[in-house]
């Protein structure tokens, strides 16, 4: 029996989760929400995380009904992410590991998403679409690495959606993406936007600057409603994501797709991916906001796999990094 | 002598090609075609590289006829038009259609089943010598074809003259 606690705080969520051999014992989380029109700044986000992290830690232990002595390993997000929040969370993880006398493990955030997705959905060897505010990648496992077959060549899809939300002042509560999704359901008029797929790669910056520019004109002239723009933006960027996922499936001969990351809980994206999979006789695996959105359990789960395969991070190596590619990690726990 | 090919896309359509040399009544034949006494396309064989070229033109013509998108008034004029690399109809007829002074002609027929009567009607009308349709290659005017289809010397390195011609015929709608 192995129990791992995971600390995650690479962006505006702070989460701590505890995993015992594939079972999620607890997974509390807090989100730093900024006013409409504003993104989250690193130092403010770090301040938010500092203020709540001990409360969240207490919750995690209480909900799991565990004492520090029951924990076998302390996992934390090493990167990628925002520097200041990463440092804050790593510092707490290091401290409790020393207080409790437990080994530490620095975990790649993206690997956390993938392993949590695999645990929850039981997908065996899927093509992974990892979509969030900072990442857009199509990943497949081969020869001990999660290899990136496709990704964004500029900004992430979630970043594109968030920044659009800021432009037309959509609320950030609970998240800009969620509110775009709700508004898109009321949209009907399809507005043509640029479509930028390059093989298994995508580009969103052109779409963002186009819609930033066009939205003011179109909204003030009454040519379309904000709901129509939300609808059209989702239809366009999600089509691109489904297309590159399908291209990777065809390329790798895979019959499974797993969607992870914050944008992955968008039901329209899941619906479109489901239609594509059905057409190919493939299977779609997705999770809900509990596990799609950044959380502590995902770091605990990746940490659990790493710990079981014999990895630990020495104290002097327990630094963080803002840039940490998914394919840098040697996957020692899979064949 | 003649070659007949059943169109794979349109199994009830067959394309027959008959080649005649030493033709003495080209003008008369052309008149017959205009009057509808010959139900077929009369083609200048020096502009053909291979019977396959005609099949490509005929298949496209039948397809466009089925979907109501022909650019000319009949299936046979459409076949001639399809051989041309450009979208200029009168230019296509001038280059690829039979002319009054020609001493050879390739007759293209589109029919639904084997029709020996149709073929013997044609042979009866043409005063000339029928030769195997494949022999069209011996009449090909390579220089003229290369010029008309604007075929580059590099292009012949990656394929035959026929390849180059067919590619242009197939893609002319989007140029």
């Amino acid at each position: 029996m192995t129990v791992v606690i995971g600390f995650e705080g690479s962006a505006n969520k702070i989460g701590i989760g505890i995993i015992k051999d594939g079972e999620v014992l607890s997974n509390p989380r807090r989100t730093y929400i900024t006013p409409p029109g504003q993104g989250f700044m690193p130092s403010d986000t770090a301040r938010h995380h500092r203020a709540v992290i001990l409360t969240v830690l207490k919750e995690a232990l209480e909900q799991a009904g565990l004492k520090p002595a029951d924990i076998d390993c302390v996992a934390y997000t090493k990167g990628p992410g925002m520097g200041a929040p990463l440092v804050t969370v790593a510092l707490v993880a290091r401290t409790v590991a020393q207080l409790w006398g437990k080994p530490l493990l620095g975990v790649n955030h993206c690997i956390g998403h993938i392993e949590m997705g695999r645990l929850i959905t039981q997908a065996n060897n899927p093509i992974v679409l990892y979509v969030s505010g900072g990442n857009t990648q199509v990943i497949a496992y081969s020869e001990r690495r999660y290899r990136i077959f496709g990704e964004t060549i500029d900004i992430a899809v979630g970043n594109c959606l968030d920044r659009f939300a800021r432009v037309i002042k959509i609320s950030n509560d609970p998240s800009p993406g969620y509110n775009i999704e709700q508004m898109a359901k009321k949209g009907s008029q399809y507005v043509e936007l640029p479509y930028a797929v390059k093989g298994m790669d995508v580009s969103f910056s052109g779409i963002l600057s186009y819609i930033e520019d066009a939205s003011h004109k179109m909204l003030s002239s009454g040519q379309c409603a904000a709901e129509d723009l939300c609808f059209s933006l989702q239809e366009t960027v999600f089509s691109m994501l489904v297309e590159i996922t399908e291209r990777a499936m065809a390329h790798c001969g895979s019959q499974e797709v797993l969607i992870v990351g914050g944008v992955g809980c968008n039901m329209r994206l899941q619906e479109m991916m489901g239609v594509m999979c059905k057409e190919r006789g493939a299977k779609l695996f997705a999770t809900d906001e509990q596990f799609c959105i950044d959380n502590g359990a995902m770091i605990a789960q990746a940490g659990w796999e790493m710990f079981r395969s014999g990895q630990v991070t020495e104290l002097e190596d327990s630094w963080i990094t803002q840039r940490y590619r998914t394919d840098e990690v040697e996957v020692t726990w899979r064949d | 002598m003649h070659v007949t090919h059943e169109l794979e896309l349109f199994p009830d359509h067959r394309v027959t090609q008959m080649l005649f040399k030493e033709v003495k009544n080209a003008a008369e034949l052309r008149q017959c075609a205009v009057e509808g006494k010959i139900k077929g396309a009369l083609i200048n064989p020096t502009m053909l590289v291979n019977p396959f070229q005609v099949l490509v033109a005929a298949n496209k013509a039948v397809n466009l006829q089925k979907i109501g998108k022909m650019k000319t008034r009949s299936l046979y004029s459409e076949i001639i038009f399809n051989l041309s690399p450009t979208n200029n109809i009168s230019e296509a007829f001038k280059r690829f259609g039979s002319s009054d002074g020609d001493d050879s002609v390739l007759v293209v027929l589109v029919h639904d089943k084997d029709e020996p009567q149709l073929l013997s009607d044609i042979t009866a009308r043409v005063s000339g010598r029928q030769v195997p349709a494949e022999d069209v290659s011996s009449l090909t005017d390579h220089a003229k074809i290369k010029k008309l289809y604007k075929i580059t010397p590099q292009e012949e390195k990656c394929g035959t003259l026929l390849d180059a011609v067919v590619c242009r015929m197939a893609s002319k709608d989007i140029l």
Partner: protein
Amino acid sequence: MAQEKSMAIPEFLSKAELLKQGAEARVYRAEFLGKPTIVKERFPKRYRHPVLDEKLTHRRTVQEVRSILRCRRAGISAPVVYFVDYTSHCIFLEEIVGSSTVRDHIASTRQSDCSNELAWLAERVGQILAKMHEEDVVHGDLTTSNMLLRHQEDGESELFLIDFGLSYISALPEDKGVDLYVLEKAFLSTHPNTETLFERLLKSYAAASKKSSAVIKKLDEVRLRGRKRSMVG
């Protein structure tokens, strides 16, 4: 006469051999006008909005035909186009009989460790791509699966480029740099530990054309953008 959809092509394809279903199209093998033929059918993608679907499908069919013609004109081997139907979005192409993908070739050769042959192949690919970019054709989906190798009787091999659906015409070094970047990622993720081989490809690309150095510079920029991107969340 009103335009109607002919059932001839769907009926024909229902009897053809389905080779694969790619991200864009179903690919069939059949005999057409007496020749071995590959049919690429861009069927409607029901996951995407019908307006977007129609626009993409039509544009890609047209681009594929255009770029094939442009490449062949420049002496770059690509399959001959026999017939295009824009209502069912089908392209009928020459089948490159007796060929295998560069991807399969690399995979099987690496097992037997014939590094000389692979080096030759990488250089050849680099040259062809330089030539293609010289013609301002940006392929848009370069992978080792989209290159075919046909061994000829004289021992020489002929390299074909295929799948031009995402291609477009551009003279911008940026677009060509992204084209190589897409290939680099597909290449290295499909064939792990082949960095030196890909280096060789790029070197030969750089040596083959005067326009290459600007493209390689852009490639470096695009790579850097990827590494520099903060990856929050």
